[in-house]
C-alpha cells in the first residue's frame, strides 16, 4: 500500500501520522492485506448475518427518567451555561 493511500485512510480515521508512522503502517498494511488475499479463494456466498447467533431487537416503552445527576456531567465536560462546548464545524 502506498503512503498516499495511508494518508487518505488516516484522514478519514481522524489520525495525524508522522512520516515515520506513515512508512511503517504502509508496509504493515501491505503485508497484512497480501496475506488476507486468501479470502479470494473462499467460495462466493450470498448468505450472511451481522451476529454469529440470531439476535432479536429488545424494545420497551419510553420512560421519563434521570439516571445520572446532570451536575456530574457538567463537572466532567467542558460546558457553557447548559450547553456542552465543542469545536467549530466550519
Amino acid at each position, binding site marked *: 500500500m502506498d503512503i498516499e493511500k495511508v494518508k487518505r*485512510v488516516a484522514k478519514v*480515521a481522524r*489520525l*495525524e501520522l508522522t512520516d515515520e508512522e506513515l512508512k511503517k*503502517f504502509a508496509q*504493515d498494511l501491505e503485508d497484512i492485506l497480501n*496475506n488476507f488475499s486468501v479470502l479470494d479463494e473462499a467460495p462466493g456466498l450470498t448468505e450472511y448475518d451481522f451476529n454469529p447467533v440470531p439476535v432479536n431487537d429488545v424494545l420497551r416503552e419510553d420512560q421519563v427518567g434521570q439516571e445520572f445527576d446532570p451536575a456530574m456531567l457538567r463537572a466532567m465536560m467542558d460546558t457553557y451555561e447548559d450547553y456542552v462546548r465543542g469545536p467549530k464545524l466550519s
Partner: protein
Amino acid sequence: MSVSIDDARLRAINDKYRIFNQLIDRESMEADDSSSFTFSAKDNLCTREFQARAGSKILEGYRPPFDATPVRKLREAGGLLLGKTNMDEFGFGTFSTNSGFDIPLNPFDTGRACGGSSGGAAAAAALIEGHVALGVSTGGSISAPASFCGVFGLTPTYGRVSRYGLIDYGNSLDKVGLLSRSMGDIKMFLPVISGSDPKDPTSCTQPRIQISQRKIKRLALPKEALANISPEVESTFRYALEKMSLELGIAVHEVSMPSLRFAMPAYYILATTEASTNLARYCGMRFGVPEKDVSQHFNDFFSGVRSECFGQEAKRRILLGTFCRMVGFRDKYYLKSLAVRQLITKEYRSVFDEHDLIVTPTMPFVAPKFDEIAKMRPLEMYSADFLTIPPNLTGLPHLSAPCGYVGPMPVGMQFVAPHWDESGLISMGEEWERVFQLKTPEVMQ
C-alpha cells in the same frame, strides 16, 4: 467464610507481576468481613470505584458511574472486587504488551509475556488463591493468556453473558468470560454472570444455562490445527490426548476442516472494521482525555487527541478497519468476511454431528520472551491467534485447559463446543482436572 488474601500480600504480588493498574484500597480490604471470594475485572469492564481505561491512555480519567452487569452480579454473589487488570489497549493484542499502562509479567517466568489481551486477568487467576478473574475475548483474549499462564479460561457463547458496561472492541465478537485455577469456580460462577439482560439485546435470545455433568466420549481434532505448532507444544498436546484416552476413555478422531484457513483474515477484517467505528467516539469530548482548544476546526480538534493518545497497534487496527470499509472495498473485505463466518459455522456444525467437542492446542508456542515479541511483525502476531480465532469468529463457546509443561512453562489445549453447550465444556474440564497435575507458580508455594 472471608477472603483469603491480605492487603500486604496482594500488593507484593502486584509489585512483582504488574497484574492490576488499580487496586482496592487498604481500608476497604481490611473493613471487608462479608465477602466469600475475590474477583477482578479486566480494565475494559466498567466499575463504580475505579477508572475504566481499557488499557488506553485516551481513556485516562474516565470514571464510570455504574457497574458492568457481570461485575454487579459477582458483587451480589458475595464477591470482593480487588481491582482492574492490565490488558492490551482496547483488547488489541496477543501478549498484553500493547498496553498504555503496565505490562503484566508471566507468573512462571517474569521474562515472558502473560498472553493477551486478558493478561492481567490470567496472572491474577494463577497467582491469587481462590480468585476468579473476569476476562473478555474478541478473538482469543481469554484462551491465549489462560494457556500461557497455566489456568482454565472459559469463553462462553456469544450472547451468553451481558456486555452492558463493557467498552466495545468488536460488537459481533466480544464475549465476557472467566479465568480461574479451578474448574469448580468456573462451574459455580458462569451461571452467576450469565443470563438475559434487557440492557444488552444480544443476551436476550439465549436458552437458559443448565450445567449438568455428562460423559464426553468423542473429540474431533482438525488436522489443519497442527500445522505451524512448535514441536514441544505438539508433543505435550499429544501426550495429553493419550492420557485422556487411557484414563478417561475419550476417543479422539482426526477430521479435516479446510475452511479454517479463512478464519484469521475474516476475523481481523470484521474485528478491525467494527473497532474502527467503535473508537470514533474517542475524540476528546465525551470520554477520557479532553481536548481543550475549542477554537480549532473539528477535524483538528478530534485528530489531535487521537493521534497523541492511541498506541501504535490501535492506530494500525483503526487504519486497517477504516480501509476495509471504504468505498470499493466493503464487498471484497467486509461482506466476504461475514459470508466466511457462515461457511465456518456450517463446517463446525457438521463436525459436531458426530463429536461432542473439538480439541486443538490453544497457542502454537509457550509464552514467548519479551525480546522475542519485540522482533515479531504485526502479521506474525495476528497469525499466532490462528487456533483461538475460529471459535471466537463463530461465537462458539470454548475452554482453554492446562495440558502439560515445557520446562516450567504451561501449555494449553482448547475445547470447542456447539453454541450454548457450556455444560459440555465444564464436564470435559472437570474430568480433565481430575487426572491432570496442575502446577501453581512458585510465589504461592
